[in-house]
């Protein structure tokens, strides 16, 4: 597994909901300064992992450390050092974009002047300056993503959790965000923990990959290691992903004849 120093370390981490396990003794290590892609099908446990690591959920069993701090006993210290773009965003709808950023900055201990300065710069970088005084409730999905990312960055976190950050973001903004994230990892040695269903983006950005299925880590390693298939033959990340989770469904549209059959001209 990854070498020290570790940004994230979990050992037999478990969590279930209503008796159904979402995480099943997950053991994972993410090295500091890495761009870690955390993949898995829907319901595999990706968001649950992030929620436990960011202090929103308590684990049922096992242990987890983030930046060397215990998630159960030192969650406040962890929150000071991390930035999170959660799935679903969940922003303060009745603050303006500018107020939201300044609020998050000041709550993280920045001086009012510094929070204001960084707010202006982040809004400019995210192309949100013109909408800075609009209420968040009026923002489009893409604008919300950019604002959430700005909130996650304003206090210079050492570790960034990004849960589906590119979902619903246009191609141009995606490219800008991608370049920004790459720069952060390269220049500031920031660790990024990213979940995404867009495998192309993960393939371009991530240095390390973990694939989770049914709450367990099914594959883990550097991107290059994992892309070497059985016998050393190269394979794409999509092939790796499908091989790992055992996606062998036949024709999903079988039984939907009424929907897929051709329509006779003139028929209703």
């Amino acid at each position: 597994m990854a070498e020290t120093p570790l940004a994230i370390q979990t050992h037999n981490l478990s969590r279930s909901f209503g008796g159904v396990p979402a995480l099943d003794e997950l053991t994972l290590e993410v090295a500091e300064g890495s761009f870690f892609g955390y993949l898995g099908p829907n319901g595999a446990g990706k968001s649950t992992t992030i929620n436990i690591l960011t202090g929103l959920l308590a684990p049922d069993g096992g242990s987890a450390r983030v930046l060397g701090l215990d998630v159960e006993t030192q969650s406040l210290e962890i929150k000071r050092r991390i930035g999170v773009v959660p799935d679903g965003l969940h922003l303060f709808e009745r603050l303006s974009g500018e107020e939201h950023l300044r609020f998050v900055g000041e709550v993280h201990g920045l001086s009012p002047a510094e929070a204001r300065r960084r707010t202006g710069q982040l809004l400019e970088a995210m192309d949100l300056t013109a909408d800075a005084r609009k209420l968040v409730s009026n923002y489009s999905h893409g604008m919300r993503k950019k604002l959430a990312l700005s909130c996650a960055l304003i206090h210079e976190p050492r570790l960034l959790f990004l849960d589906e950050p590119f979902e619903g973001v246009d191609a141009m903004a995606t490219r800008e965000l991608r370049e920004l994230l790459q720069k952060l990892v390269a220049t500031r040695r920031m660790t990024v923990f990213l979940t995404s269903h867009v495998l192309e983006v993960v393939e371009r950005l991530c240095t390390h990959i973990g694939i989770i299925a049914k709450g367990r880590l099914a594959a883990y390693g550097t991107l290059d290691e994992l892309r070497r298939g059985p016998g050393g033959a190269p394979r794409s990340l999509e092939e790796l992903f499908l091989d790992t989770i055992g996606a062998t469904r036949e024709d999903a549209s079988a039984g939907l004849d009424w929907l897929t059959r051709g329509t006779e001209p003139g028929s209703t």
Partner: protein
Amino acid sequence: MRTLRLLFWLRWRIGLNTTTTRGRVAAIGITVLFALAMAPIYVGSAIGSFALGAKMGAPGLPIVFGLCQLGVMWVSLLIGAMGRTFELDKLKRYPLRPRDVFAVNTLASLGEPVALMTVPSLVAVALGIARHSGALAGWAAGAGGLLLLLVTASLLQLLLALIDDLLRREWMRYVAAFLFTMTMIGFQLAVSRSSSRMAERVRQAGFTLDQLLEDTRQAFERLPTVGAPASVAGAHPAGWLASPLAGLAVSLLLILVPLALGARVMAKAALRGATGGRVRTRASGTARGSLGPKLPGLSRPQSVMVTRELLYVVRTPALLYQLAVVPITAVALIFLSPARKAAFGFMPMFVMIGSLAGRNLMLWGYDGPGIRTLFLLPVSARELVLTKSVGWFVSALIEAVAVLGTLAVMRAAQVLPHLAVVATGWIALSLASSVLGTWFSARFPTKPPERGLGRRSPGGVAGFGALLAILAIAGALILAVVAARALAPDSWKETASLVVTTLAACAAVAVWWIGIDRNADVVEQNRERMIDVLAKSSDV
């Protein structure tokens, strides 16, 4: 009918899927408890209605109909007792006609407690009339009662649609909060004026019950919303509504016009989207300063958290309405109450205590999806509870300053000697209310309606219990003051009262301080549930 059946099925399934058997049993229990607690009102009204029907026959109907409609309207406007069961916003992706949804909402609102509480009176008056004039007249009175409820519900639903539409326009939120508060006060003013006039006439002419009933009947039968259904029921009101056919036509108009108008307004509002817009620069703080001022005793991050709470109060229509309605109502009552006779402004104080008891029970609810971001911030649960409490206390203080300030200015001679007692009593109550409200809203997180003015109390077993608890504390404090005054010699009565309220305030400060830690534990324990309940959008 298809829409009706499908929507009620949807509501039924969602209800079943989101509650436990224990919760349902508890809900039935609280319904029975509530029904018993309110029994003196509706059983008493029913007895009176039966007696009236048996004595006057159908001509007495406008009195019962008028009082029922007045009761439903007044309670609905004052405390938001009648809501919308289905929001078109959530249903607009389906091929449903807004008119159908509006009609379903109108029918569903007949099941609201405030509407159901009028049913015993309407049934009783029909039975009384049956005894007076025969079964056929009784059935006609019953049909008229149903028509009255439909007319009332239609008009209220139209009003709700208009309010909702207004509140979706950024600048109108402020105007709407003011206008509807004024509507409610105007309503009370009209009732107060006409009853004063009636009382004056009664006093001059010599009081007789018959005279009073006759005056009331004449006043109500002039109102088309009462006179028309009463005409259908055989009351033969004076004027153009005397014919039952005319009554039926007007009743149908009073149902169908709100239906057409309300559906139109609702459809337009659903396309308008959520409230939003730009925020004035001043609200964002000074050019170089913080988002908000640093409050004494709080750190800068804590002060910023309190600022966020206050910004939310001003920018959330339901919270703004709740903040505005109590002081304006209380102040209006001070001006309206027949002088200056009501020693000490009992009604304004009662309104204020009611507000303290109900407004605190959804403290976390209005954070909505933002609750998750709150828990991601580097602040402890204790700080969250502290800043939430301070934010709430500030809004309660604004309310109190407006009410007590007006009382002190308008009735200086009566109020000023007792101001210290009232102020210390208020501190005790508001702090107790803060502790209980924080505990309740964390332990039983409730998502307020996403549209409209919203209800003040989340209801349910615990909601009702929490409401009663604060009212009980207020009652106990008042009793303690009364007891102290009774025991103390005349010259020491005021001092004895002040000692009692000061002791209560000191005890409340201690409870509040300890309660912050205790409630922080409750927030920690219920964090997942709070996120689960509040961050999700409602289904329909």
